[in-house]
């Protein structure tokens, strides 16, 4: 039957080969066992965590931000329910299809969606917002075609609503999604991508109070996303409400005065530091940030040549012009360069070496003492005393009165401005300080740069005889249960070392400004106003018009600073606006008093 010889040879080979085969098997199983050891013993904990992450889905419930009220308790900022389009990345099987279908309903840039998903996805089982705040008809369309959006869901989240649109936009600020950069900041260390934070203004400054705590629901789900069990529920806690010092009626009035202009206005109480109105114009509507903006929209608002997002009161710097003469006057009086009666002759020009500096009145003011010099804003008077004081004294008093540093107001992004000195000039432009620079500085021109708020602070110091209160917007912060979390009292920062006599002389001069001087357009029947005009030359174009004033003269209640960019003459462009504001303030006050008597 068999060839015995062949069979024997074959059998032997086969026996050997079978042994080889078994060795091969053993090698394979050893590899498998080593791999099992690696997966289960060495990496076991890591994989167990991954398994747990797989099945626990945390649903975040946004906390409504705190509301914002003005000083009379009028609601300015609240929340409204908005419907967001979210996806659960793990449940979306076909992104392209989903995005294509969605783009038929909502204009979206599909490349953006992919980026959003890539950059924000922490956990593929956590809902991710793709499009915020859908319009009603879009919601209906999506609901109707629900079957097309596998893995997507509509969630209701509170969205910020600014009830009076543009009103006090720069003070209130706006909210939007946290940026990559902000995520790394310590203020926001508990936040995650996609969270909403205050981006500017009070929304930003008081963000930690307004924000509240997100609610969290952790549920166990199976692979199909069905909830199997609830593990943890944590209700969202609404943020604290904020009550402002702001008088929204006055704010609105001032905004109307500034309509069509560019500039800044601040109204505050000098003896407390409370800001009653702060206007930066042109303004914007913070509500637009709650909807997701397209790139074009963002460009339009951020690259606007009028710089609408900038709060000019604290974020822009200007030459102060003649308003600065008050500092020169204070310095001159304090340093004994002049006294109340010292007269200086103004021929209409002033000569330093071979340079000639003109007074604004070409025919000259003739002989005048400091009160008249302020009232008429005589350049030559201040050139002369400024020259006598020298740069170091001038910059000392400028700093003493708060220039060159932040005021400490409760708003983010404040600029310091610039008080020049001989050292500064040497360091930055490598030139020595010329006498002509001092002459320029003494009337608020040249290198000096200030924010309107710094000018306003100087005004308050004068009105207040040297008591410096920190300017602020928030009276109290109240929790949802009505408990006062924080109450902000007027904060006396310092008392300026300037004699009362000096303040008296300066104020007298400022009274004269309005009575008979450059600021006569601010002269109103209702109340005695003291002030100072300024017409700041600037290389960019028309002069900036300044007016600062307080009222009543003998017992100042409010201080008003008006800056009209490229408005021309301070006396003509800025003073009437200040006058209207002061009149409005005292009229409302009078009306309220009458009302109070009636009831």
């Amino acid at each position, binding site marked *: 039957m068999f060839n015995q010889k062949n069979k024997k040879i074959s059998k032997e080979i086969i026996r050997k080969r079978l042994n080889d085969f078994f060795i091969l098997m053993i090698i394979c199983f050893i590899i498998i066992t080593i791999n099992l050891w690696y997966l289960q013993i060495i990496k076991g904990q890591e994989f*167990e965590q991954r398994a747990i992450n797989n099945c626990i889905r945390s649903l975040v419930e946004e906390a409504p931000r705190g509301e914002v009220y003005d000083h009379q308790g009028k609601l300015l900022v609240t929340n409204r329910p908005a419907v967001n389009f979210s996806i659960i990345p793990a449940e979306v099987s076909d992104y392209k299809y989903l995005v294509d279908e969605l783009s038929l309903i909502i204009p979206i840039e599909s490349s953006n969606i992919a980026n959003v998903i890539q950059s924000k996805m922490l956990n593929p089982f956590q809902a991710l917002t793709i499009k915020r705040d859908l319009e009603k008809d879009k919601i209906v369309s999506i609901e109707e075609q629900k079957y097309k959006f596998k893995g997507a869901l509509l969630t209701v989240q509170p969205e910020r609503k600014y009830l009076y649109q543009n009103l006090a936009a720069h003070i209130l600020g706006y909210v939007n999604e946290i940026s990559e950069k902000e995520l790394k900041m310590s203020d926001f260390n508990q936040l995650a991508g996609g969270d909403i934070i205050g981006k500017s203004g009070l929304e930003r400054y008081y963000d930690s109070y307004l924000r509240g705590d997100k609610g969290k629901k952790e549920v166990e789900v*199976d*692979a199909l996303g069905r909830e199997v069990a609830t593990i943890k529920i944590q209700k969202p806690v609404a943020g604290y409400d904020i009550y402002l010092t702001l008088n929204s009626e006055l704010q609105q009035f001032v905004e109307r005065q500034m309509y069509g202009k560019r500039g800044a206005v601040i109204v505050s109480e000098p003896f407390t530091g409370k800001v009653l109105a702060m206007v930066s114009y042109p303004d914007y509507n913070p509500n637009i940030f709650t909807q997701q903006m397209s790139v074009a929209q963002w460009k339009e608002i951020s690259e606007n040549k009028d710089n609408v997002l900038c709060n000019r009161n604290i974020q822009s710097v200007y030459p102060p012009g003649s308003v600065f003469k008050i500092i020169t006057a204070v310095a001159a009086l304090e340093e004994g360069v002049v006294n109340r009666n010292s007269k200086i002759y103004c021929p209409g020009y002033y000569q330093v070496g071979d340079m000639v500096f003109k007074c604004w009145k070409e025919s000259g003011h003739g002989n005048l003492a400091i009160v008249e010099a302020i009232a008429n804003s005589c350049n030559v008077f201040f050139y002369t005393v400024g020259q006598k004081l020298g740069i170091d004294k001038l910059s000392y008093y400028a700093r003493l009165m708060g220039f060159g540093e932040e005021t400490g107001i409760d708003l983010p992004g404040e600029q310091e401005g610039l008080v020049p000195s001989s050292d500064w000039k040497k360091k930055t432009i490598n030139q020595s300080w010329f006498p002509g620079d001092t002459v320029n500085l003494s009337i608020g021109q040249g290198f000096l740069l200030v924010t309107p708020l710094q000018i306003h602070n100087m005004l308050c110091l004068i009105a207040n005889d040297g008591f410096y209160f920190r300017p602020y917007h928030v009276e109290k912060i109240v929790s949802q249960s009505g408990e006062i979390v924080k109450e902000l009292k007027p904060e006396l920062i310092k008392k300026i070392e300037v004699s009362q006599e000096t303040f008296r002389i300066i104020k007298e001069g400022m009274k004269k400004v309005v009575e008979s001087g450059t600021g006569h357009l601010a002269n109103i029947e209702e109340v005695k106003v003291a002030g100072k005009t300024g017409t700041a030359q600037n290389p960019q174009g028309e002069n900036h018009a300044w007016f600062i004033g307080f009222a009543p003269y003998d017992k100042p209640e409010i201080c008003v600073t008006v800056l009209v960019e490229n408005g021309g003459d301070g006396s003509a462009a800025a003073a009437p606006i200040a006058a209207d504001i002061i009149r409005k303030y005292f009229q409302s006050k009078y009306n309220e008093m009458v009302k109070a008597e009636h009831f």
Partner: protein
Amino acid sequence: MSVELKSSNILSGKSFFNQHLRLFKHVDFTLIFLVTGLCILGLLVIYSTTHQENINEGVMQITRRQLIHILTGLFFCLLVTIIDYHDIVKIAIPLFFLSLIMLVYVIFFGKNVGGSRRWIQLAGFEFQPAEFAKITLIIFLADFLNKQKEEIPNFLYFSLPFFFTGILMLLIYKQPDLGTAIVFFAITLLMIFIAGISWKYIIAVFIILVSLFPIGWSFLKDYQKSRLLLFLNPEMDPLGAGYNIIQSKVAIGSGGLFGQGLFSGIQSQLKFLPAQHTDFVFAVIGEELGFMGALLLISLFILVLWKGIRIAQEAPDILGTLIATGVTSFMFIHILINVGMSMGLMPATGLPLPFISHGGTFMITNFIGIGLLLNIHLRSIFV
């Protein structure tokens, strides 16, 4: 014991009953014990992963079905054991052609499940002809190689089996079922290797395979390509095609040393693991029974395979050796690919795990394989 006394003598005895009683006494009970152990482990795991769903369908529906598969398998096992394999080999060629016909049939008339036609429905039963073809291929190749053994191994000797297998592979690839096609190829390769093909041919085959790879690649379907690519980097598409591999690895890894316990695996109980009572059943064992459980399973498999090797070595003739080799290769390939795939060591090809995975035809095929081993073992005792 003289040569004249061997197998034919036993089967031509006077009392049929007595013969089979004698056979029964010499059955390889160790092998049966090992297989029983595997089946019980499989039933436990299947029950663990499916007990929740069955509430709607009737308690233990899938587990009960698997039990029926096992019992049916045992019946076929017994049948195959008692018929002398020399007699079975007599119909090797008709069996092979029957497989071919069924595989052609299934391409056109098979039941379409998830885009592939693998099932034949016949008289209320469903079965996969590809599984049946595995056994017929083993028998057919054993017969062929046995008949050719007189020849000094030459080119024809080793290339003809590949030709036959190639036809089967092509038909199975048409279903499409890449995994099974690979199993056919591997069985053939191993059988030829064991049959004593010279090393130079083995090396030649590998060179040809490597050089043919780019051509083969172009024949693959997109999903098959993506599976192979994902094998290299499953994180490439964690929610799409890489999902299965990642979830399976996570399941195995989370088992740790002793596992999370039956009915307590996160991945398996919450269905994050796909095909968990069929292709990814090993991951369930890894998760719920841990390293120790997986090691127990692997040990059982090694013992079964070792038994297979011993039976092949002690077979009364080359035919028996080749059949036992084929069966052992078949099981080994299935175990290797299935376990390797579950751990991300091999591309996901969707091969079931012998005696563990849920599935009727495959279970019966396994038992027929065991039947063949027992058959050869019985006949070798009297050599």
